[in-house]
């Protein structure tokens, strides 16, 4: 099974036999990949019970929990990497969550849909409505995305938090984007340390 582009980038960057905590791990696709391909000690946290059940049924170590609250239970630097894929924008306090990611992990991967992508901008500019695009497919009243964020916003947050950006990846659909990223990237992935 092939991974989503942001997860594939993260999987490729993770060192073999390391310890990884995937927060909001969904059905465990990244965890299973890391465990099987890189002998990673892969753990997960997921709020949806049905997803957790599917993870545990695959033999993955996944805890049903709310990252807004339960990340605080993990010890400092207990993991080589923490991963937060497509979840930052759903956090109650993304800034505090970034702190937790960098406290629990030596390095953190964060991926999110870029709200400044040209499709989103034009939907708002010319449609005059909250954008519903292929990256942000759910209407404003039922979306879990309560803190939309752009590539530029995230760089600023990282700087304010004293986090160093080690690597970054940008995608439009499945294709890498290298220039004009805050306009052209549908999704961004950052690798951070502090």
């Amino acid at each position, binding site marked *: 099974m092939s991974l989503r582009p942001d997860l594939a980038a993260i999987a490729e960057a993770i060192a073999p036999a390391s310890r990884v905590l995937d927060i909001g791990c969904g059905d465990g696709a990244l965890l299973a990949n890391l465990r099987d391909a890189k002998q990673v000690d892969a753990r997960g946290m997921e709020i949806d019970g049905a997803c*957790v*059940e599917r993870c*545990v049924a695959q033999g993955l*170590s*996944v*805890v*049903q929990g709310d990252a807004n609250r339960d990340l605080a239970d993990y*010890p400092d630097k207990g993991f080589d990497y923490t991963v937060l894929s497509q979840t930052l924008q759903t956090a109650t306090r993304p800034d505090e969550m970034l702190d937790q990611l960098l406290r629990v992990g030596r390095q953190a991967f964060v991926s999110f849909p870029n709200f400044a992508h040209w499709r989103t901008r034009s939907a708002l500019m010319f449609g005059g409505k909250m954008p519903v695009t292929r990256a942000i497919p759910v209407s404003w009243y039922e979306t879990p995305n309560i803190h939309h964020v752009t590539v530029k916003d995230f760089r600023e947050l990282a700087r304010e938090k004293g986090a160093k950006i080690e690597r970054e990846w940008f995608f439009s659909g499945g294709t890498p984007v290298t220039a004009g990223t805050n306009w052209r990237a549908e999704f961004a992935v950052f690798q951070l340390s502090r």
Partner: protein
Amino acid sequence: MAGASKTLQLPNPLPLDGGGSLADAVIAYETYGELDEDRSNAILLCHALTGDQYVASPHPVTGKPGWWERMVGPGKPIDTARYHVICANVIGSCMGSSGPASVASDGKPYAMRFPVITIRDMVRGLVALLDELEIETLHAVVGGSMGGMQALSLAANWPERAARVLVIASTSRHSAQNIAFHELGRQAVMADPNWRQGDYYDAADQPDAGLAVARMAAHITYLSEEALTEKFGRNLQDREAKSFGFDADFQVESYLRYQGSGFTQRFDANSYLYITRAMDYFDLAEEHGGKLADAFAGTAARFCLVSFDSDWLYPTSESRHVVRALNAAGAAVSFVELSAPHGHDSFLLDVPALDRVVKGFIQ
């Protein structure tokens, strides 16, 4: 009351948390499936308060199927074609392992002279059994309710003995409410004049009425309000109208009376006192200096905790409490709250999601 189980007399006195030791302790147990050559495929199943070793074979007294046949057997989630499953009667109980009904050295039943035991004492007995069976490391230890307490106790006190620890609908400590319900049950037994301070074994009349009330009260805690309403509502039992008397007018009354009287056929009243006491004394953090995470420091075992959303006896918050401690200890832990309508007893009933979790975790 012993059935056709295998029994093992422990070669050494069993040390007890309350001080002293239990000499000549006997453990009765059942096994299912073959032990492989390197003795690495054993799964220890720990039973609940009134459970026993007949996990997947008929009960010798009641003739009913084993208490977890839906989970244990060839091709079942705990597959006896792959695993060697061991289930032993805990000490203090009454299905062949040493308990208050056992005969002491003076030729009379121990009755209340049997020492007060703890969950850790029960597990010490199980570990002694594993020693005798020459099983160094279990593939998994699995338990629901009180069985889950034993699994946690084994993981905390003998961390090298199990590679996987599966704890279902359980807790790391008895709450005030848990203790309160148990005290109600014990007082019901002890208020029965036939209890005779525990010396009833030779008497014509047994403390069945008290034990039945204890079981009725406990049974309510095993079910959710939704399950009771669904099953019985306010339906009347075999009658058109209320009797304006104190017969079992309502179906739920009749059901509880049936549960209570059926229980006295298979369980010893003194055992009920001892085992509920052991559960009330259970506080895994207290045993480890007050911090639950310290109970699991350095563990290499993988853990899985499962709770049920309708279980108000050992609610999800208790499982989360254990999960937090395991996370703080850096242990590999899974946790899921499953949705099931039946209350605490969900772990014994038809919950397909539980089958998938159990199968996935132990493989």
